[in-house]
């Protein structure tokens, strides 16, 4: 495997470097650097959005989720993605209409224009910083777990994290959003290819789908239904997770930006359908991989299970490809989110001739924060991801009321959102219960803010 990695790794890095350099030559302006050419066609738009959405959380988190929680994991992610793609179709129209009226320098600045106060953008930025940094960190953590298993005692995990962050920053700072988008296209293809190769190998070893399900039933029948052996995936958790995922196109800047820079609304709609197909194609194989783990490695820790099934049980060239695939998945999501945060920072806080420099420094700062957090984050990748999505979902009502209404919404919507974020953070640190009145707290907060948003829209400033 190491030999294959020595060949495939440099090829992959060379491709990224070439894309970054070519994008740098084509960059004419700050807008080009931060928004690409703002006319993404269907295939590029689909693959870059898919790569940004489906991260190490998919290739590592989901197999482990299926292994531990069973079939309801499909409802947890794939069905929730089915709702999300409809939200894309619905939301994209209003977003693009608002952007055509007010221009686009980032979601935060757009909110400032809508609310006519800089506090809207600041609240938005606070939310995405607090909840997206952990999400980026789990990408890094996911891949460093792997690389440590592949090269034991070669480098400490923090050094691997530093290397990955370095690669990411090098090509994104060189080529801007265009380089990220081109890299995403390659990474989406690599991710899809790798996950299916591994899944087919696992399925073959299990003797097919029917035999797989029979073995799972003998091993642990609770995996074949909700809520799963650990009782996690019940109706409330699944519903709250669905809400969090459905809000992703609205609240996560790297996805929202891609909706803005698609060539046309028609291409955006087609892209949404494509994302749905991609979701099925990329999540289904993780079910096979997860159940393979449930049959053979039920008692292993998450890192040991993933190392075993993605590396040691595969042919050397497949294992090497898995490492590349994971690297691609981690980088494609992380670079998009870090870059988006840098763009938001530039639009909100960086004024004057040193704006680009400050943006670049901000991206580096966010990357360092993510690296630091990755050293202390847990191994529960899927659950950490959902915490991140749930946190940013709280920003949803504030954003929606700004995008959907023509006149400035009431400014107390911003304060209400801040209170909601504080409450949710409190629940994550155990200061507030995670359920109140029998309802999941995140769901409760979003519902209350939704009601407040209704009044904020009708009581315009």
């Amino acid at each position, binding site marked *: 495997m190491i030999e294959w990695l020595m060949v495939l790794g440099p090829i992959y890095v060379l491709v990224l470097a070439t894309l970054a350099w070519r994008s740098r030559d084509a960059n004419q302006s700050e807008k080009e650097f931060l928004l690409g050419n703002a006319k993404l066609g269907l295939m590029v738009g689909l693959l870059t959005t898919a790569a940004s959405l489906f991260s190490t959380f998919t290739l590592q988190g989901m197999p482990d989720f299926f292994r531990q929680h069973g079939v309801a994991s499909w409802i947890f992610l794939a*069905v929730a993605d089915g709702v999300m793609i409809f939200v894309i*179709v619905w939301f994209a129209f209003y977003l693009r209409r608002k952007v055509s009226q007010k221009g686009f320098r980032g979601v935060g600045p757009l909110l400032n224009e809508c609310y006519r106060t800089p506090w809207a953008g600041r609240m938005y930025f606070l939310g995405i910083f607090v909840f997206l940094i952990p999400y980026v960190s789990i990408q890094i953590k996911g891949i460093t777990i792997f690389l440590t298993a592949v090269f034991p005692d070669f480098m400490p995990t923090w050094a691997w994290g530093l290397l990955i962050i370095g690669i990411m920053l090098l090509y994104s700072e060189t080529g801007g959003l265009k380089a990220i988008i081109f890299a995403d296209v390659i990474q989406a293809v690599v991710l899809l290819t790798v996950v299916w190769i591994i899944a087919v190998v696992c399925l073959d070893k299990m003797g097919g789908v029917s035999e797989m399900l029979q073995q799972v039933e003998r091993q642990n029948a609770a995996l074949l239904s909700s809520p799963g052996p650990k009782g996690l995936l019940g109706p409330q958790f699944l519903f709250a997770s669905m809400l969090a995922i459905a809000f992703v196109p609205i609240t996560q800047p790297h996805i929202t930006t891609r909706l803005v820079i698609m060539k046309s609304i028609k291409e955006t709609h087609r892209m949404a359908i494509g994302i749905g197909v991609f979701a099925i194609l990329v999540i289904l194989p993780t079910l096979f991989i997860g159940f393979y783990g449930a049959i053979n490695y039920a008692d292993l820790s998450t890192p040991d299970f993933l190392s075993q099934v993605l590396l040691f049980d595969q042919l050397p060239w497949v294992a090497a490809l898995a490492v590349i695939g994971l690297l691609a998945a981690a980088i494609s999501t992380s670079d998009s989110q870090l870059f988006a945060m840098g763009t938001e920072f530039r639009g909100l806080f960086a004024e004057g001739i040193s704006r680009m420099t400050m943006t670049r420094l901000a991206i580096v700062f966010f990357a360092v924060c993510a690296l630091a957090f990755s050293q202390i984050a847990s191994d529960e990748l899927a659950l950490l991801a959902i915490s991140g999505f749930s946190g940013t979902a709280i920003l949803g009502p504030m954003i929606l009321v700004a995008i959907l209404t023509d006149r400035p919404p009431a400014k107390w919507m911003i304060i209400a959102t801040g209170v909601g974020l504080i409450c949710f953070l409190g629940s994550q640190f155990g200061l507030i219960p995670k359920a109140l009145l029998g309802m999941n707290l995140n769901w409760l907060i979003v519902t209350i803010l939704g009601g407040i948003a209704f009044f904020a829209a009708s009581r315009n400033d």
Partner: protein
Amino acid sequence: MNRKRLWLLSGLGVIVMIAIIYNPWTLSPGKIEPKLGVLPFHLWFGFLSMLILLGLTALGAYSHPTHHNNEEDL
């Protein structure tokens, strides 16, 4: 049926699907029967739900009032 009505129907369809999927009766603990072939209930129901949602999104996208409009550049 005109496109606007189709668009509204597709949205309504998604809301109905959410209500059908995410309720304690559909997601009864330990519900494996009825199976579809070898697939336990929550698995085949999940597959079917995703396909239906994809279909509703495709319907909604095609029938959206702006789907065939030209837009100004950003």
